[in-house]
């Protein structure tokens, strides 16, 4: 080997460049898996591959995808947020209740204010998560597991366990729920905007590079002068914002703010997708592209099981199994030692 600068600039082969654009060899296997899922269920039931069904899959994937994309950033930073589903539920309730209270107690309120308050609540939840993890020195899994329960309880308390408000009389909520621009549903545009923003943040800014560094080696990042606390709080705050956004969309679609319906269990989908999409458990590796592909696989699988008439309870079993498989694959890839086995 010679010192680098003495060699000619490296020419990247076009095939390699295409592969990198798709997110590297790992994403190629995800694309293969997605194709496999589509082919298998398409064969079992041709209606599965109809445009209308594919659109159903896409719309169903949107909200999990929003959460998964933000979760990817949290996991890359070496953390994890289990409380996202509860944050979405809380935001949905808050949005509907603010809407109702600025109007006549049920409807006709000020949608912009309702949405803004819900997003602020989401950011506050995220900041609280970050502070608990940093200053309480609580493990991220335990800290956010506790907040999963706490935020859900808060949503139930506020709403009395009932659906709040009536949002389907408001133009803005209707637009969020069912509007479309250039043939794409509004909520898909929101996903595209959020995913693109997080992708650009992670890949092209010094902030994103520092997030990878913190997850890759927190000690090294700290000694290099990166302020871990600020980054960790900020990452959870962004997660809270996105979770609240998902909650607002959920409320808009169902027409009311519900504490748990629709939002409960989203954390499992988001986390499964992030790991399946290539995030390392310890942090420092992963990307938005892989996570989106993984959400597509999960959604296609969910829908496929329904379309071929499998008992819907099997979907939970399939998802749990997939999470284990995703983590096992990740551990193998990073060469981590299994618990209890000799070194």
């Amino acid at each position: 080997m010679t010192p680098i600068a003495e060699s000619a600039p490296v020419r990247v082969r076009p095939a390699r460049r295409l592969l990198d654009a798709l997110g590297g060899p790992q994403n190629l296997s995800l694309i293969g898996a997605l194709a496999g899922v589509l082919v298998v269920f398409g064969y079992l039931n041709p209606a599965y591959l109809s445009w209308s069904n594919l659109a159903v899959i896409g719309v169903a994937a949107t909200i999990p995808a929003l959460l998964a994309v933000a979760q990817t950033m949290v996991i890359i930073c070496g953390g994890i947020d289990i409380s996202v589903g509860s944050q979405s539920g809380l935001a949905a309730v808050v949005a509907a209740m603010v809407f109702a209270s600025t109007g006549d107690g049920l409807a006709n309120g000020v949608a912009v204010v309702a949405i803004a308050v819900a997003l602020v609540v989401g950011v506050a939840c995220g900041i609280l998560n970050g502070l608990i993890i940093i200053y309480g020195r609580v493990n991220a899994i335990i800290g956010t597991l506790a907040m999963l329960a706490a935020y859900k309880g808060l949503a139930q308390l506020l709403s009395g366990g009932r659906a709040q408000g009536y949002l389907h009389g408001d133009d803005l909520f209707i637009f969020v729920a069912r509007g479309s621009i250039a043939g794409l549903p509004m909520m898909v545009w929101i996903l595209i905007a959020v995913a693109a923003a997080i992708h650009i943040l992670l890949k092209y800014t010094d902030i994103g590079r520092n997030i990878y560094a913190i997850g890759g080696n927190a000690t090294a990042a700290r000694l290099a002068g990166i302020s871990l606390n600020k980054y960790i709080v900020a990452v959870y705050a962004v997660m809270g914002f996105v979770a609240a956004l998902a909650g607002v969309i959920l409320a808009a679609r169902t027409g009311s703010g519900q504490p748990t319906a629709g939002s409960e269990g989203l954390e499992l989908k988001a986390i499964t997708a992030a790991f399946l999409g290539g995030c390392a458990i310890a942090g420092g590796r992963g990307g938005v592209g892989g996570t989106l592909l993984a959400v597509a696989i999960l959604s296609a699988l969910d829908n496929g099981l329904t379309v071929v008439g499998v008992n819907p309870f099997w979907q939970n079993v399939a998802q749990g199994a997939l999470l284990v498989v995703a983590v096992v694959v990740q551990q193998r890839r990073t060469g981590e030692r299994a618990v209890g086995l000799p070194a």
Partner: protein
Amino acid sequence: MRLTDPVRSGDPAGADGLRVEGIGKRFGPVQALTDVSIDFPAGSVTALLGENGAGKSTLVRVIDGQHVPDEGRILLDGVPLRLRSPGDARRAGIRVIPQEPDIVPHVSVAENVYLGSLPRHAGRLVDRGRLHRRVAEDLASIGFAHLIDPSALGRDLTPAQRQLVEILRALTTDARVLAFDEPTSSLSEQETEALFALIRRLAADGRSIIYVSHRLAEIFRIADRVAVLRDGALVGVHGVEQLDEAAVVRMMVGRDLGAMFARGHVFTQEVVLDVDQVSTDVVTDVSLRVRAGEVVALAGLVGAGRSELCRAMAGDLPIRSGQVSVDGRPVGLRRPSDAVRAGIAYAPEERKAQALLLRRSVRDNVTLAVLRRLSRLRFVRRSAERALAATYVHRLRVRTPSLEQEVGKLSGGNQQKVVLARWLARRPRVLLLDEPTRGIDVGAKAEIYRLIAELAENGMAVVVVSSELPEVLGLADRVVVLQNGRVAGQLDRSEATEESVLALAMMSEGARP
């Protein structure tokens, strides 16, 4: 073949006890042990001495089965042993008492001692009565019943009591060989005396005792024989009555790396780094001045506080009192980013664990501390980043197939150069290097030495922590020697020799020449 051993053991056949024969062990580029043959006769205490990195710990680990030697054999009572794991060593009757034994915190001393072989009633119920009686008997039989309560919980034990538990564990398995690794480093004088009394009894009962320590005064209190290692080879074994502290130090020194150092720093009188009476939890009242162009080495034994002082100057450990200034401006060091901003760069001791993003590219690693400067509106300018990384990779002669190579796949020397490149890219005023050549092959060492000299010539203030004395002497314009967290003395280049540095690092104040 007893050329290296002028002292005949008590047993004329020389077969009783432990013998290592022609042991060699290599770690990558580093030859840790070369043809080491030592007798540890039954009934006597043999001290194992040597500078940091001389091979003492490696030899103990070989005896303990943690390292399998590349060459040579180990014999107990004349019978060759096959030691592939600490379990093998225990079954053979060899037991190493570590500085900090593994104690289960929430169970009693008695259970800790008989961990894994608790006496049972019929079935699997533990017979606590028998357990406690047995431990009480064990303690009484070695005369230590007054030192430890068998029903005390593991977490409440003092360091001395923890070692006692480990010794009891060894005795219950009828160990023939006991090795102590720096056993007194956390013991009070009283506890030390009690431990020594126990060690003498254990030896008198016919066991082989291996005693590893840096503390010369102690060696003369407890050991019958002294074996000295240097650079992984045996220097000699002598009866303790033939030696004094100065003689032991003379045996430990004398390596030659001289040719590797490019010398002749010219430094100005301008003080860059001024450490004024700094105390942390480990170091006390340390003052230190480093001028532009000067290389100051921090010497001392492991645990003397060298790394802790560096980490405090890097903002990584809290400073309790005192002041650090750079170029005459006081620096508030509350976190590492304060130090980085003040122009202090720190390459820590554990490259892989503390400095590198092993799974990321050379480019990522080199530019980690300067990303903000390379960004416009927070977007990292790729071309500028590549250019900067290439500049420093070239300047430091990092051997890598490309800038995108994963750092974890480079050799240790090149990894260290990547760490240096990261800091040089920030153009620091002060460079703190903790063990910069640990685990690096000789060729890369020479390059790092040359680089340090070059950086100093360009006006940087350099502080080097090193456990290798020849390195300290070769690099440093001045050597500051720490002992127990305090400055034991400073030596100019002209006064610094291995003897003078070791004397400051090891000897009690009264015994120094």
